[in-house]
């Protein structure tokens, strides 16, 4: 704090450009970091995937997740980049790099980072089908989602008619990372 020489401990970017795992590993390198764990999500079994993100929510969400993981796993630095647009077979669509004093924290932090990003970051992919055409990949329901087929009556709590407060307008998903995120605020 206070010194411009201090490097940021989190780095988040959504980009159309190819990703460099080596560059992210350099970004999280620290004198006290004895361990760097690098995860790359690679496009497989299809000719290509087209990724779409809700910006800037996707970057804000990943930044929030990065800060929560940093605190929860005693990480020294976290970097994550996600591609949008067309990603060819064998290329990375997402790269996560974390550094920590020791490997245990680094592995745990990297694992929670990618799991939570996949569960919460508003990113979608459409995959090419053999023989032409493509379809949106059915992924995981977003946090606080409305279940399909539910009727209007089931999805709405009884209304008392009392004036509605705007307090607590939105709420965090109830994951361990979300709890750490609240504590970190």
């Amino acid at each position, binding site marked *: 704090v206070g010194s411009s020489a201090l490097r940021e401990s989190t780095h988040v970017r959504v980009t159309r450009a190819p990703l460099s795992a080596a560059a992210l590993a350099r970004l999280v390198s620290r004198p006290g970091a004895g361990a760097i764990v690098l995860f790359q999500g690679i496009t497989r079994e299809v000719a290509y995937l087209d*990724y*779409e993100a*809700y910006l*800037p*929510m996707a970057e*804000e969400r990943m930044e929030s997740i990065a800060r929560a993981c940093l605190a929860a796993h005693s990480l020294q630095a976290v970097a994550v980049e996600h591609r949008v647009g067309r990603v060819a077979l064998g290329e990375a669509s997402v790269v996560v790099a974390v550094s920590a004093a020791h490997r245990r924290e680094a592995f745990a932090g990297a694992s929670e980072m990618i*799991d939570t*990003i*996949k*569960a*919460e*970051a*508003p*990113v*979608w*992919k*459409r995959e090419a089908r053999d023989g032409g055409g493509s379809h*949106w*990949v*059915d*992924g*995981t*329901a*977003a*946090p*606080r*989602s*409305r*279940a*399909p*087929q539910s009727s*209007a009556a089931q*999805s*709405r*709590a009884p209304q008392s008619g009392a004036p*509605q*407060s*705007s307090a*607590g*307008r*939105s*709420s*965090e*998903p109830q994951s361990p990372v979300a709890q750490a995120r609240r504590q970190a605020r």
Partner: protein
Amino acid sequence: MNVEVKLFGLLRERAGSPTVVLELPEGAVVADALDKLASSGPLAEAIARVSVAMAVNREYADPQTVLAAEDELALIPPLSGGSR
């Protein structure tokens, strides 16, 4: 009030537009907006088939969150994260 809802992925393609405008009564909540989208229009079939969440001002919102005309709303279809 009229609210504009951002669309992504299969919902954007189904609507043929990156946004849809909804007319809602004052004091409407997220569940009201989702009900309206599910009851008619180009997204009704897709919303009945997949889980859909709503983000209000770029945070996932509870169904009882009260909406205002100036809110940034987005309809969030299932995310790309799949198997571990």
